[in-house]
């Protein structure tokens, strides 16, 4: 593990965490959510963070997502030192470097898919995005929702809503895609569908970190990091990596009726 950060951004790790600790005060008690975590993720990696609830994986995820700052230790995101940044700097960093996908989709209700996806571009302060509507439309086409841009979240299935959320995460061309239990609210079919999309995006070169407690889902990634009691317990590459696209084809062959029914239901909506 190199101690000096290389100047060339292309060779810098996307994530570099050194001895990160996070302590919360709960009344008189101190809760140690993270007790010294080290982690390096290179460009193009696809990592699953696993762990039971209370293991500290959510805290780690918030830290990686620049929503929270460590009590001690250092964090570099794409070569930028994150710990010690102000609230506004963190907000700008989230906007420019990160894309979020949540378990509950977290789309704005009563707002079209297109407007939802456009939103992160509107909060940009660098002025680098010109035609925000066109960029949002392109991102929606990329996740296969080119036909449903004007639909509101309530008119979309869970899988489709998660696709909109992924499009929203992608539209700013982030360095890192963070997904917090992205398939937690989806059935097995849609789970494979979403994982297939993640694998496709990863193949296109996007670095992804996702939190999950489902081993099946973790098997679609390239590397599994297991967190327990605020420390990284195991960190190993996935040996038998599943191909979600192939699994999806198999699913369609074995249960075509169900899929048809779902398609009909989607069309009706």
């Amino acid at each position, binding site marked *: 593990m190199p101690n000096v950060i290389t100047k060339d951004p292309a060779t810098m790790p996307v994530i570099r965490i050194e001895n990160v600790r996070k302590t919360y005060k709960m009344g008189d008690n101190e809760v140690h959510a993270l007790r010294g975590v080290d982690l390096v993720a290179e460009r193009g990696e696809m990592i699953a963070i696993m762990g039971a609830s209370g293991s500290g994986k959510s805290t780690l995820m918030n830290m990686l997502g620049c929503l929270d700052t460590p009590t001690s230790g250092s964090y570099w995101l794409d070569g930028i030192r994150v710990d010690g940044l102000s609230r506004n700097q963190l*907000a700008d960093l989230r906007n420019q470097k990160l894309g979020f996908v949540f378990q509950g989709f*977290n789309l704005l209700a009563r707002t079209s898919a297109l407007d939802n996806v456009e939103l992160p571009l509107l909060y940009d302060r660098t002025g680098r995005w010109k035609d925000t509507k066109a960029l949002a439309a392109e991102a929606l086409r990329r996740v296969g929702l080119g036909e449903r841009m004007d639909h509101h979240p309530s008119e979309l299935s869970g899988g489709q809503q998660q696709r909109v959320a992924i499009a929203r995460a992608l539209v700013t061309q982030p360095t890192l895609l963070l997904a917090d239990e992205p398939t937690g609210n989806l059935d097995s079919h849609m789970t494979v569908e979403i994982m297939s999309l993640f694998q496709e995006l990863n193949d296109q070169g996007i670095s992804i970190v996702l939190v999950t407690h489902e081993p099946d889902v973790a098997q679609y990634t390239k590397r599994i990091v297991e967190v327990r009691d605020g420390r990284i317990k195991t960190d190993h590459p996935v040996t038998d990596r599943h191909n979600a696209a192939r699994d999806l084809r198999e699913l369609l062959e074995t249960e075509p009726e169900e899929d048809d029914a779902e398609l009909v239901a989607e069309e009706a909506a």
Partner: protein
Amino acid sequence: MKSSVLVRIAGDSIRKNKMRTLLTMLGIVIGVGAVIIMVAVGQGAQKSIANQINALGTNLLVVTPGSSNAGGVSQGAGTFNRITVQDAEKLKSEGTLFAGVSPVVMTRTQVIAGGTNWRTLINGVSTDFQTIREWQLQSGTFFTDNDQRTMRKVAVIGNTVATNLYPGTDPVGAQLQIRNVPFTIVGVLATKGQNAGGQDQDDVVLVPYTTAQSRLAGNTRIGQVLVSALSPQDIPAAQDEVRAIMRESHRIPEGDDDDFTVRNQTEIANAAQGTTKIMTWLLASIASVSLIVGGIGIMNIMLVSVTERTREIGIRMAIGARGSDVLTQFLVESIVMSVLGGAVGLAVGVGGASVLAHFTGWSTAVPVQAVALAIGFSAAVGVFFGFYPARKAAALDPITALRYE
């Protein structure tokens, strides 16, 4: 973030919650509407009082006896009556800026017609009186210069006198006893109604001042002289001319005080206007209370809305909204809502004022300043009462906000 985008985001949010927006605006609508109606009624009252004062006769100057000064001891106003018919005649012959001059010899006495009697005001005036007061005749004619010169016993009576002494008949040509002197009625004045002081102006009998002095009052002193200037622009100059002629007539040495007073209508009007202005302000400030209540309504709904939209705020922050972006969004929302409410309230107020005018017969007027004030104030209400909820939203922790159910 560009301000146009901010306004768009706030506008979207307002349109997507129509019911909430309407309820929020209601308080401001009522507040602004009430202020506009109250000011309109107050302004209407001011206008009608101004009209009543103008009805006394425009360009009017009133010359009344002033205080006399006996050996350095001021005797107070009216203590020594030094306005005479000669003064009035001098004003009439030497004045260059006067449309008319009329002395007024006032007596209050009982008048008798046939079997009925009536106590009324007898005014001995000149023929100019009719033009000075712009007083039309209902029937008959005004007395003539010839009547005045020859001290004929003729009278022009007011409407109240006519209806009380000669009910149902035209009194022109009838006899009227004033202090046992028989007068012939030559004309009846048109109704003028109450003056600004609430007195019935139609309860009056006009006779030539020459007749009044020789037959009724018995001396040459008169109560006041009415002078009308040629035009409103001439009033200050005419006032100076009256003073100059009067001083000359009274032989007042240079440096001594006037022993008479010249007042113009503006002064009288201002006094009356002042009273109604206070009333208008009183009404408007009572109505402003409802505007403040409306503002508190906005704050309440905005506060609830911040809680209700905690997750939305969390999402916005997660994808890169700064605290200031959220603050501005909520502030713009509240300003847009209150200004919109102010505009609707303005329409309600103007409409309400004209409906009120239609049904009550009060004249109403909506001044431009009131409109500007109402809109400005509602925007200020939006900023003031929107700031606290907006700051609360901006201070939210994104993690907590995202987890909020």
